[in-house]
C-alpha cells in the first residue's frame, strides 16, 4: 500500500526525472526513495528503457497528409482566437455610451455618402443647387399634370357633357314644361 502510494506520488515526475528536468531537491528525494522502494525503482528503470529505446528508433518524417492537417488545425485555432479577440474588443467597444457614439458616427458617415451621391461636378454648393433644380422640376411636373387634367376635363365638358347631356336635358325639360302649360 505504501509502495503504491509512492508510485502514485511520483508517477507524474518520473518522466521529468529521466529527462533530467526534475529540480535538484526532488532528484535527491527520489533517489533516496529508489533504494527503498523496489516498485518505484522498477518504474524508473522502465522509463529509462523506454527513453533509450525511443532514442535508438530511426526518425521518421511525418506523413504529408498528417502534417497538412496539423497546419490546418493550427491555422483554424489562430483564426478562432483572432475572432474571439475581435468579438471581445467589439463587446467592449459597444458597451455603454460607446454604443450610441458608434451609432452616431455611422449615421454621420451614411449622410456624407448620401450627400456625395447627389453631388454634381460643378463644385459650388452643388447638392443644394441640384435639389433646388429637382424641386422646380417636381413643381413643373405637377403643374403640367394638373394643367393637362384641367384642359382635358374642360374639353370633355364643352365637347361631351354640355352638348350631349346638359343641352339635351334642357331641351327635354323645355318640351315638358310647354306640354304642361
Amino acid at each position, binding site marked *: 500500500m505504501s509502495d503504491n502510494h509512492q508510485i502514485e506520488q511520483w508517477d507524474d515526475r518520473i518522466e521529468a526525472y529521466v529527462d533530467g528536468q526534475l529540480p535538484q531537491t526532488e532528484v535527491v528525494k527520489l533517489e533516496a526513495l529508489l533504494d527503498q522502494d523496489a516498485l518505484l525503482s522498477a518504474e524508473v528503470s522502465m522509463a529509462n528503457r523506454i527513453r533509450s529505446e525511443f532514442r535508438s528508433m530511426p526518425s521518421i518524417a511525418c506523413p504529408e497528409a498528417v502534417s497538412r492537417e496539423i497546419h490546418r488545425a493550427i491555422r483554424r485555432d489562430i483564426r478562432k482566437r483572432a475572432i474571439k479577440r475581435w468579438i471581445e474588443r467589439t463587446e467592449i467597444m459597444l*458597451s455603454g455610451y460607446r*454604443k450610441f457614439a458608434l*451609432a452616431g458616427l*455611422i*449615421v454621420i458617415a451614411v449622410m456624407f455618402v448620401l450627400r456625395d451621391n447627389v453631388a454634381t461636378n460643378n463644385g459650388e454648393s452643388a447638392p443644394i443647387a441640384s*435639389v433646388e433644380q429637382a424641386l422646380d422640376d417636381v413643381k413643373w411636373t405637377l*403643374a403640367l*399634370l394638373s394643367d393637362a*387634367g384641367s384642359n382635358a376635363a374642360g374639353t370633355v365638358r364643352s365637347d361631351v357633357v354640355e352638348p350631349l347631356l346638359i343641352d339635351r336635358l334642357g331641351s327635354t325639360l323645355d318640351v315638358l314644361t310647354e306640354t304642361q302649360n
Partner: protein
Amino acid sequence: MTYYKNIINLVVILLVISAKPIAAQDITDHSGYVDFSEISSQLGVEADKEINIHGAMLRLVIAAARKDDPELAELLTTVDGIFVRGYRLSGLDVNLVQRQGRTLRAELERSSWEIFLKVNDRDESVQMYVKTNGLDIAGIVLISSDQRSDEMIYLNIVGNIDPEQLSLIGDKFNMGGL
C-alpha cells in the same frame, strides 16, 4: 448575450439607414414604373427636358419642400419617382411619333394599365393611364402633345398618389415651357 443585443441594434440601425436607398434602386421593379429610356431612340431625337427624380434625390426634395410647402412635401411622401421626357413637336417626325405611340400604348395595355382619360382635340391630344394595385394607385402615365405650345410630353409618376390632391397642389404652380 449583451454582445448579440448590440450586434442586433447595430444591424437594425444599418437596415433603417439603408432601407430607402435599396428601395430607390428597385424603382424599375415598381408596378407603377414605365421605362422611358427607349423613347428618345424610337423618336430619333434627344429629349429637350428630362426629369428623373427618385430615391435619395426625392428624399432631399421632400426635405427641401417641407420648409416652404408642407402640403407638397406631404404629397411627395406618397410618390416613389417622377420621370419626364419632353420634346419639341416641331422637331419630331410624325410617323415616328405615331409608331412610338402605338408601341407605348400596346406596352401599357399589356402591363394592365387602364386608360383613365383620352382627349383628342384639333391641337391637343392627352392620354392618361393609371395602374392600380387593389384600391391604391401604383402609377400614372400622361402622354400629351400640344401643337400650340409645340410640346410632346411623356410623364410617369410612380407611387400611391391621390389625383385630387395632386391636382389641387399642381394648380398652385406655374408651368413654363420646355
